[in-house]
């Protein structure tokens, strides 16, 4: 009887430590479906995109929780900023808090999308939580999206106009203050 009791107790203890109460779901992954934008604000005023701008490479990728994201659906009704990054990138780390804040201030008007390459899932989640990244993050494990935008190393930032015109790309990235200025000059009417 004692031989049976010890394993049984161990199972009960482990179950008590790991199981969630009924009805409680696992916490949402940072960068997953819960970060997708809401409706476009009715008062969003945009500058017209130059007719000479090339089309941005379209892609569909999986967010951190596997939810598919189709880039063209986002830029169909508002500008999109792609930030190409890795959790190990020191320049990305130095700039991310301010970029996260900029994205929050422009939430739903300009959609930020992170594109994480050459990264590990756990380290990526640590990065996103530490730097309060509250926008969708595509996991680009093989860097196919990176290559379609000619990104060779993180960081890099790309700005796409409503409708899908590729406005500007910044290899090496840029800080939040410079990006905000460029948003005013290139896409947001009445703010540049």
């Amino acid at each position, binding site marked *: 009887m004692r031989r049976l009791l010890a394993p049984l107790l161990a199972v009960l203890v482990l179950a008590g430590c790991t199981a969630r109460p009924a009805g409680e779901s696992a916490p949402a992954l940072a960068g997953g479906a819960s970060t997708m934008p809401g409706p476009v604000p009715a008062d969003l005023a945009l500058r017209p995109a130059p007719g000479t701008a090339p089309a941005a490479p379209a892609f569909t990728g999986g967010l951190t929780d596997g939810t598919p994201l189709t880039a063209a659906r986002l830029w169909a009704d508002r500008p999109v900023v792609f930030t190409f990054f*890795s959790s190990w*990138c*020191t*320049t990305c780390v130095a700039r991310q808090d301010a970029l996260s804040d900029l994205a929050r201030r422009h939430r739903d008007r300009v959609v930020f999308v992170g594109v994480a390459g050459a990264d590990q899932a756990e*380290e990526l989640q640590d990065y996103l939580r530490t730097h309060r990244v509250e926008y969708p993050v595509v996991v680009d494990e093989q860097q196919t999206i990176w290559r379609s935008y000619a990104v060779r*190393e993180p960081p890099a930032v790309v700005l796409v106009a409503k409708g899908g015109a590729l406005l500007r790309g910044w*290899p090496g990235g840029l800080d939040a203050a410079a990006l905000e200025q460029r948003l005013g000059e290139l896409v947001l009417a009445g703010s540049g």
Partner: protein
Amino acid sequence: MRLTTGTRRGTGALAILLLAGTTGCGGPDPGPEAVTPTTVRVLVRDINIRAEGVDCAGTGPYLYFHHRAPFRLLDPDGAALVTGKLPAGTAVAAFAEDLAVERVPTYCEFAVPVQVPQRTGYRLEVAGRPALDLTPDSSEGPALVAVVPA
């Protein structure tokens, strides 16, 4: 608790083995092996456009050279002498000419201070990729250097 005869025998044998282990079986203890400070320098010649001096990673096929990438410094027999994680690389100008622009063609250089015992040769393995041969170089202080691609 009472011990049976068999248990006593086993306990006695274990004690002898532990004693042998603590006193050493191979003669006098040679002590820790002497080590020498040096720097492992790897120049990744990816010719990427960057501002000189910024943090960098290798690009294209060399993207696995990056901050926090695991490395092992190996001796000629493949034994790991040092293990660790790479620091960020630093962008160094690929050409001497002043191009009068902020972003220029650069290489990405990694410098890792290590302490190594004397061996006839050293190799560097990064992120589980095939190891690189390191060459001693004292032109800028003691260093073990490699260039990628070789």
